[in-house]
């Protein structure tokens, strides 16, 4: 495409603007995390710490049970990811291949569940889980995360199933394989990359989730990382900036890594769907 020199320069200038806007808050987080207390108190803060230190990280671990919280987050996220994918894959298969009322209803639920305010769900969930003695329990949180991850997991997986040619399944049927056999031995292997991407997405969603964890977990030893992070911000909103930044930086790393790996698949899955919905 032909573009004039002036237009090109304008485009690069705009791109630079976006880079600054998108990038600077994250850079500021890193800078704050490595600054000694004295530099943080400085009225004229610098971008690059003059005396970079790990003291904030040490202090963060001393002040809050970060390791424990990370372990809680890891368990909740792994549990949610594995269970969500195990139960979503067969359902996505039915949604993709079936023309039943059930498949239509499930698709409807996927859309509607994106829209309702969680407060309307969390109050009854709180009451139900309380009756089941699952309040303040990791198992209860995992259950909630599974259902919370399901809509998008189904959305992604339905797309992946549709990408598998039905003829392959027909061939298996001709060879006498039953429906489950066909699913397990023919379709599932072809779905594997999609299943892994979906599981990783469910993992990141649960790792990052805050609202349900805030409401459902009361015991400090059971709380997940995002909830524990807010403990660094005192009741008056006064925060110890260094340790807060250090802990936040650590909490972000796992999701960034996972996201970098699956980014292409998520975006493809999400918006191929969005066009259609």
């Amino acid at each position, binding site marked *: 495409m032909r573009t004039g020199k002036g*237009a090109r320069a304008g485009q*690069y200038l705009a791109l630079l603007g*976006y*880079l600054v806007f*998108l990038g*600077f*808050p*994250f850079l*500021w*987080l890193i800078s704050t995390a490595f600054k000694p207390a004295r530099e*943080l*108190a400085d009225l*004229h*803060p610098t971008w690059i710490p003059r005396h970079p230190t790990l003291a904030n990280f040490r202090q963060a671990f001393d002040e809050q049970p970060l390791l424990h919280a990370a372990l809680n987050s890891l368990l909740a996220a792994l549990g949610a990811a594995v269970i969500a994918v*195990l*139960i979503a894959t067969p*359902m996505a*298969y*039915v949604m993709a*291949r079936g*023309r*039943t009322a*059930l*498949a239509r209803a499930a698709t409807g*639920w996927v859309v509607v569940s994106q*829209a309702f*305010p*969680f*407060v309307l769900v969390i*109050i*009854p969930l709180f*009451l*139900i889980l309380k009756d089941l003695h699952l309040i303040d329990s990791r198992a209860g949180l995992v259950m909630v995360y599974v*259902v919370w991850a*399901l809509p998008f997991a189904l959305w992604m997986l339905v797309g*992946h199933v549709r*990408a598998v040619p*039905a*003829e392959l399944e*027909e061939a298996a*049927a001709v060879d006498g394989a039953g429906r*489950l056999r*066909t699913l397990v031995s023919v379709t599932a292997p072809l779905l594997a990359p*999609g299943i892994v991407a979906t599981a990783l997405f469910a993992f*990141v969603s649960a*790792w*990052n989730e*805050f609202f349900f964890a805030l409401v459902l977990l009361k015991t400090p030893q059971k709380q997940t990382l*995002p909830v524990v*992070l807010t403990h660094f911000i005192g009741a008056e909103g006064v925060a110890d*900036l260094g340790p807060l930044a250090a802990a936040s930086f650590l*909490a*972000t790393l796992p999701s*960034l890594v996972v*996201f*970098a790996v699956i980014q292409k698949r998520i975006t493809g899955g*999400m*918006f191929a*769907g969005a*066009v259609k919905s």
Partner: protein
Amino acid sequence: MTLASATSRPAGHAPRRGGDGRPLDHGAWFLVLPALIPILVLSVGPLLYGIALAFTDSQSGRTAPTRWIGGLNFQDLLHDTLFWDSFRIGLLWAVGVTVPQFLLALGLALLLHQELRFRWLARALAIVPWAMPEVVVGIIWRLVYNPDAGVLNETLRDVGLGDGRDWLSGLGTALPAVIVVGVWAGMPQTTVALLAGLQNTPRELHEAAAMDGASAWRRFLTVTWPALRPVALAITALNLIWNFNSFALVYVLTNGGPGGRTRLPMLFAYEEAFRYGQFGYAAAMGCVMVAAISVILAIRLAVRLGGGEEA
């Protein structure tokens, strides 16, 4: 990408999905139940239960049995000016975030669609806010806005624009300040959605229009926008809803302060339910929010049916 090619097939011409010709109805239940039961018990059930709760006087820690009180909660809600303030703030926030988010994301998507150097960097950076826990996004911006040690005030001081403000606790600045954060946090999804839409625009049409000497603006209006419209409408409707329902970001940034100036409806309902224990009343607030969201969905549906949008 496999997904894109699989789902962008025109719906009417898709091979019938019962693909292999065998009926699914009997075996299907067996495959669906493992997901269906949790959905019914932990999602659909609670949703209906929540709507029912709105018509009761349910409270936490109450010894007397919960009673059915009809529309009383809604009557009270009607006169609850604090809630309507919060509702108004929620709408202001949802529109205030969604509109600039869309425009900025459209600009970025158009740029990233061009063959520019460093666009990989922009793509990578655009993912960062998306991958981050919302709580951390809130924390980062608290660091940026910090009146003493924050980068924003330092930059303003450097260029000689006043001497530091506490953006998040100023009555007039708090809402605009959190809106900026909302725009930042949600830009990636919107950008990626629009980029996906752009990739569907027919290149040949674009080139033909350029050949005919159409200006960039004309080409955008006649070629790009018509192809982009379905994605743009879908993502805008979703963003309005998601933003209206948001919680974690503002909870961390201001916790609804100062003086309720950033108290989004979700924050209000959360406080009512889990701080004051008014489950029934908070559920009624949830119902009012659902009603507001239904309006957005209805408009979206009307546009789709009336506008002759194919997808």
